[in-house]
């Protein structure tokens, strides 16, 4: 049974001549949260960007392997990267709401940007903000500029903005690393609610966070100028309490990285 929602097969990445990721094989089952952990510079961000074809926007980026969404290669000849990014949303480390748009406009910005029209755009604003658990905070100020929100609110707005596209998969690259503990906790609660309806991949440096929210965890490592690769991948409980590889054990117990 190889029926995973999203699957990376032998993913390799180069920047120019530099090989930074080697033969990454990971499977992301539906309605599960998968955490990617590992020391700085091991290629987590690089890998997660290959999952929605944001990778190819970097000058000099090279790629080999396959990424399958519902069994279909998103790098296929006939596939439009824009369609891939509509189905596979992404939330970044630094909140990046559009500064010229209001809160409301930010939520539906994806529809405008990708040229999709929805008759229920009005409901969509409320629905998306509810799913990102911030509707009550902002419902009276929907027309205020998005940058008048706090950092944590901006990040949840960015999540709402992705949710408005109704993605199948949500990729998050250290979404809480710029936020306070309160905002972090709220985003974690949101993630746990969202996984009922989608597949989530999250990069995190916070071991407690990985344990709180993820079902499976992949440990990346790039040793001594070798390309990054996956050392160990399995159930989160197993990675943290019964790691097979000694390097995983050292990392999750905070002995390096």
């Amino acid at each position, binding site marked *: 049974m190889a029926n995973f929602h999203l699957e990376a097969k032998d993913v390799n990445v180069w920047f120019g001549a530099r090989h930074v990721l080697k033969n990454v094989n990971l499977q992301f089952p539906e309605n599960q949260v998968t955490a990617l952990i590992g020391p700085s510079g091991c290629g987590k961000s690089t890998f997660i960007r290959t999952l929605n074809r944001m990778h190819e926007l970097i000058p000099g980026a090279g790629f080999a392997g396959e990424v399958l969404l519902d069994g279909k290669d998103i790098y296929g000849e006939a596939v439009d990267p*824009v369609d891939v990014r509509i189905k596979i949303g992404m939330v970044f480390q630094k909140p990046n*709401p559009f500064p*010229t748009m209001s809160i409301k406009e930010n939520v539906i910005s994806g529809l405008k*940007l990708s040229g999709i029209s929805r008759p229920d755009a009005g409901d969509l604003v409320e629905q998306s903000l509810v799913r990102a658990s911030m509707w009550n905070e902002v419902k009276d100020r929907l027309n205020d500029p998005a940058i008048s929100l706090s950092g944590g609110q901006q990040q949840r707005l960015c999540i709402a903005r992705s949710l408005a596209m109704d993605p199948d998969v949500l990729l998050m690259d250290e979404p809480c690393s710029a936020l306070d503990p309160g905002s972090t906790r709220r985003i974690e609660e949101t993630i746990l609610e969202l996984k009922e309806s989608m597949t989530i991949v999250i990069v995190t440096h916070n071991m407690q966070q990985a344990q709180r929210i993820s079902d499976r965890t992949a440990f990346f490592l790039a040793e001594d100028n070798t390309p990054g690769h996956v050392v160990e991948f399995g159930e989160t409980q197993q990675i943290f309490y019964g790691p097979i590889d000694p390097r995983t054990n050292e990392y999750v117990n905070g002995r390096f990285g």
Partner: protein
Amino acid sequence: MSVPTQRKLLAKPARTADKIFFAVAKAAGYSSFVIIGLILFFLSIRAWPAFERQNILEFAFGTGWDNTLDPAVFNIGPMLWGSLLIAAIGVVIAVPMAISIAYFIEFLAPKPIAKTATVIVDLLAAIPSVVLGLWGLGVFTPVGAHWAQMLGDALGGFIPFLSNDTGTYLRSPFIASIVVAVMIVPLISSVTREIFSQVDKEIIKGALALGGTRESVLRRVILPTSAGGILGGVLLALGRAMGETVAIFFVLNLVFDEYNWFNLLEPQGGAIASLILARFGEATPEEVEALLAAGVVLFVITLIINAIASYIVQKAQPWRRD
């Protein structure tokens, strides 16, 4: 419970070096107002007799310029309108080109090409306008007249802007506008490129990750964030276009007696700066005063346009306030 009284806070520089720097910067800042004021003041004094002889509105909007009549007639209406028309059409042609060039350099071109293109564009911005005028006269006019004729033949029948029954397509506002556009494209694109390079790359990534295409990201994210800065560049360019003298003088027929409101392809038009250049050499003393008065009008109009534009920028960008 009572609150202690507010204390005096140190807002002024305390150290000597800082004090000197502060004073110099302040002087330089205020001197710009003073200089503008002085220029306007002395121009106006020299031009005053012209304003005394006739109503300023008649001077600015009336027609005819002739020092052989008695009394002489000095009105700049068609020149003023021509300046605005040529500058406006020039800007309309130049802005899309300049933005495309800036977009290409900043977001599409590979590094070495982008660097070379940047240098070339900045060099183009530095071409003296007399050289551009000569190019306009010697090289572009025949080509431009040919284009104009094709446009006129094809569309002149239904689009009034493009109708022309004078039989010649030379020395028209159309040709002058294109020469002006060539002159200001590098200026606008140089400013725009700089503004584009300062757009936060994170929000561009965010837009692409939401399924944005190059076109929609440019239109909905990059342009709105850079609109204020681009408008600043356009204003600089508009100032240069309105004040352009030699280049327009070479490629445009100045017609003083009647307004050419919109017949872009006909060989008649106007430009205040070119009027001044054309007449100054053999001007009678009275005429010199009128030419200075024309300068005052040009100056004031340029100031007004700038004021309106900065008001628009402020209105259009609530997030930039404070």
